[in-house]
């Protein structure tokens, strides 16, 4: 039987991060996948060369709406490294707090999206409701739910009061209880197991070869976490465990993220209980001396790398950003090979590629002039029906 090519994507105006997947099918099995990106290329790296470091602080924050803090912190770390300064300890702790609050809301968001993609909308409603607890804490401290504008070069812009500390700890108690429940659901609920177990396999040797990062790599048993391996902010002195599983499937990616939520809660409690006194910012010059720095942080989706080359002026000479989703793209192609068409939504969602990318699905039969245009929602519905007909409820 001839292979059938199915292009998925690239975009829907209401959703973020459009991508295009061309999926080659033999029957219902996927034999090959080609991924095209670039639909939201905004030329940020070029733009940064024309902006001052202070302006760039706000530009890098807008690279991503979810892991904005990873980007802005990476940027400030690079500038601070070239300046040769170390920021006040209290500021480091507050930065770590925001790193982890961001990871919390990102993982809750992902858990909801994953639930939605397999038709488990109750989970989606629950986790997104709980995510609001984190958003409220972020807003309480920074004034913003997203794009917190917390960082300055040389520290942070807002302090955490004792009253706020108490509220953060209360929030963590609530979230810990909820996450305990999600852990039980993720490990025992048939709705999840039937769709996630053994689906989207990424073997450790393939993950290594294709340079996968973050929870995607850790779910394939690769023990890597930049927070531990190349500590930044206050991770050096903050106890936590790196979570890995060796199931190499979508279920593993669920488990890693759910267990990472517990670790984030643990880190946040530690930070709040050990928050050092002192200044939160320091004065820095406007012009940055000539030099270069490369730094990476463990963003919720994986390793985020920033490289800065400065030239002695108040604007960077070159700024380079490598986001975790790009690093994980070659791995998606591997995960999809030999999967069923019906598994595409959850497998793609499982790397957490700032989801929602692909709303438009084009069904194209080879040799036909009139490709049929359908929506991402229909592919999702198809997936659910396909599993239902297999005898899964």
């Amino acid at each position, binding site marked *: 039987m001839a292979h059938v090519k199915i292009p998925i994507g690239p975009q829907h105006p209401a959703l973020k991060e459009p991508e295009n997947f061309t999926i080659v099918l033999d029957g219902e099995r996927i034999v090959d996948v080609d991924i095209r990106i*670039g639909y939201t290329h905004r*030329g940020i790296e*070029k733009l940064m060369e024309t*902006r001052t470091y202070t302006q760039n602080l706000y530009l890098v924050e807008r690279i991503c709406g979810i892991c904005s803090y990873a980007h802005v912190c990476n940027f400030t770390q690079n500038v601070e490294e070239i300046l040769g300064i170390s920021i006040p300890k209290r500021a480091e702790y507050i930065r770590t707090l925001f790193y982890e609050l961001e990871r919390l809301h990102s993982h809750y968001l992902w858990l909801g999206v994953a639930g939605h993609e397999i038709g488990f909308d109750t989970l989606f409603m629950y986790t997104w409701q709980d995510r609001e607890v984190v958003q409220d804490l972020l807003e309480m401290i920074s004034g913003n739910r997203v794009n917190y504008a917390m960082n300055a070069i040389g520290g942070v812009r807002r302090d955490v009061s004792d009253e706020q500390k108490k509220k953060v700890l209360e929030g963590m108690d609530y979230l810990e209880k909820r996450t305990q429940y999600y852990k039980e659901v993720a490990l025992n609920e048939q709705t999840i197991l039937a769709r996630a177990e053994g689906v989207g396999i990424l073997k450790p040797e393939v993950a290594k070869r294709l*340079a996968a990062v973050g929870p995607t790599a850790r779910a394939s048993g690769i023990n890597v976490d930049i927070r531990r391996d*190349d500590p930044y902010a206050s991770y050096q002195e903050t106890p936590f465990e790196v979570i890995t599983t060796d199931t190499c499937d979508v279920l593993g990616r669920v488990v890693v993220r759910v267990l990472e939520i517990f670790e984030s809660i643990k880190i946040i409690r530690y930070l709040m209980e050990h928050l050092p006194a002192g200044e939160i910012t320091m004065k820095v010059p406007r012009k940055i001396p000539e030099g270069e720095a*490369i730094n990476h942080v463990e963003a919720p989706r994986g*390793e985020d790398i920033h490289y800065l*080359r400065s030239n002695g002026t108040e604007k960077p000479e070159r700024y*380079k950003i490598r986001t975790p989703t790009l690093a994980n793209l070659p791995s998606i192609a591997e995960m999809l090979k030999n999967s069923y068409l019906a598994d595409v939504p959850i497998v793609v969602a499982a790397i957490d590629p700032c989801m929602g990318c692909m709303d438009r699905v084009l069904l194209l039969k080879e040799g036909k002039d009139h490709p049929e245009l359908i929506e991402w929602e229909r592919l999702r519905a198809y997936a659910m029906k396909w599993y239902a007909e297999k005898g899964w409820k």
Partner: protein
Amino acid sequence: MSSKEDHIRDILQEKTKGINLQITVKRDRRIFINLLREDLKKVAEILAEDLGTQHISTITARDTGNNFEILYHFFIDHVMVTLRTTCPRNEPTVDSLVSIFPGAILYEREIHDILGIVPTKHPDLRRLVLPEDWSGGYPLRKDWKPEGGDTNGAR
């Protein structure tokens, strides 16, 4: 006891005898290695074989006027190792590392797309981030200016 950085430097120094390169330990967990572009593949093979490296983190390239500087970033044993090489602007080619590090495939497409650096023997040099029908040159080059109109303070 020698540090991780010294350990990596010693292995590289021993294995790259006869190759003209300069190894700098810039700080904890940061090593920069300057080398000629003819030697890039050889040194990359040494990273793969003698240091067991499989993971390439990313590739950065920049316009330095008459040349392009290309940086290959690796994370080896919790140390960020960067290979730095250059290629002339009028002959912007460099050996592709995809045969040694398959993870480099998208990063090499990216430097080709935005700076016009050609990784030779790359298996698939389609555009990565720019549109398929783009004909506006290489935006990350310093002499590239956005076409027409207000650039909102851009030089």
